[in-house]
């Protein structure tokens, strides 16, 4: 199925029409999206800043990640669901928007970065206590994560001005 076929099919669904026609549905879903995405970005920043040694230095990195990341995942599930619903309301407008496509690309990169971090670097977290400096690959991954999420927020905001 091509992207054009997908958006045409989506637009014909009752859900898409309900979101497009309602005066309050879109802003309500948008509010949920903002709550969820700010929780995602904020909680990931807590972890990234810890890995970079800029905050929570007295907290062992592994314990911090185990405590905070479930919140991140819960918020991410909500952000993704509300994001899909927003897309469903105006599928062809989003699909044609370069900032939306760029945001998806940055999200994919952020996901890859996170998967790589957990698969390749997760085992090196346990020694990260006190002022021990994280190994360079961990700091590089944390920096990439911060930059990618700032980019996701910026592109998300730019969608609002160009759609």
């Amino acid at each position: 199925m091509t992207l054009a076929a997908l958006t045409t099919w989506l637009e014909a669904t009752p859900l898409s029409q309900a979101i497009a026609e309602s005066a309050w549905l879109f802003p309500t879903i948008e509010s949920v999206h903002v709550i969820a995405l700010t929780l995602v970005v904020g909680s990931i920043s807590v972890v990234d800043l810890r890995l970079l040694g800029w905050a929570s230095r007295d907290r062992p990195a592994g314990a911090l990640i185990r405590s905070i990341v479930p919140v991140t995942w819960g918020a991410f599930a909500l952000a993704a669901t509300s994001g899909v619903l927003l897309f469903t309301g105006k599928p062809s407008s989003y699909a044609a928007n370069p900032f939306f496509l760029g945001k998806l690309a940055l999200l994919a990169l952020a996901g890859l970065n996170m998967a790589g971090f957990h698969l390749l670097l997760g085992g090196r977290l346990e020694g990260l206590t006190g002022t021990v400096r994280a190994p360079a690959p961990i700091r590089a991954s944390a920096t990439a994560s911060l930059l990618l999420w700032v980019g996701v927020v910026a592109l998300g905001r730019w969608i609002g001005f160009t759609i």
Partner: protein
Amino acid sequence: MSTSVGSHVTDVLAGFAAWLGKTPLFDFVAGVAWVVPALQTVHILAVAVVIASAAIIDLRVLGLVERDQPLSTVFQRFLPPLAGAVGLLALTGVLLIAGEPTRAIFRVVFWIKLALVATAAALTWGLAAGVRRWPGALGGDRSVSTPLKVAAASTLLLWIVVIVAGRWIGYAVAWAGAPQ
């Protein structure tokens, strides 16, 4: 706002908006297309810092995150970034208003949002003060009192409602008599 008090408020705000529109700040924010989305991006990032800090503080009081950390330590770690981000929100908020003086300040939901921010901030710092006086705060004590838990849950809920009110500014219409 059809009362005379209401129209007086509108007049005062309209005077303020007209003055703002003649300042160099207005030219800076409104003059270049990318400044408003850039300011909004910083505003949202600051919201992320506030909501994540508030969530960690309040969820810790509820015993859901950072359970093995003393309450007082969690407050020490997350209250400063929360305060700094509220300052950044005020700054970017003022700049956004300067760029569009006739928008937010003539919408009821904007003033509701400000009142909610003040309440949520007061509750957050009240909670910090309450925790400081509570002896269990210094240990890894998990048995937080019920009133403290209710206060924490209400505080987090209030910060969430602030976000909803903020999003609604973009959709609300100006009250009657507001300048166009």
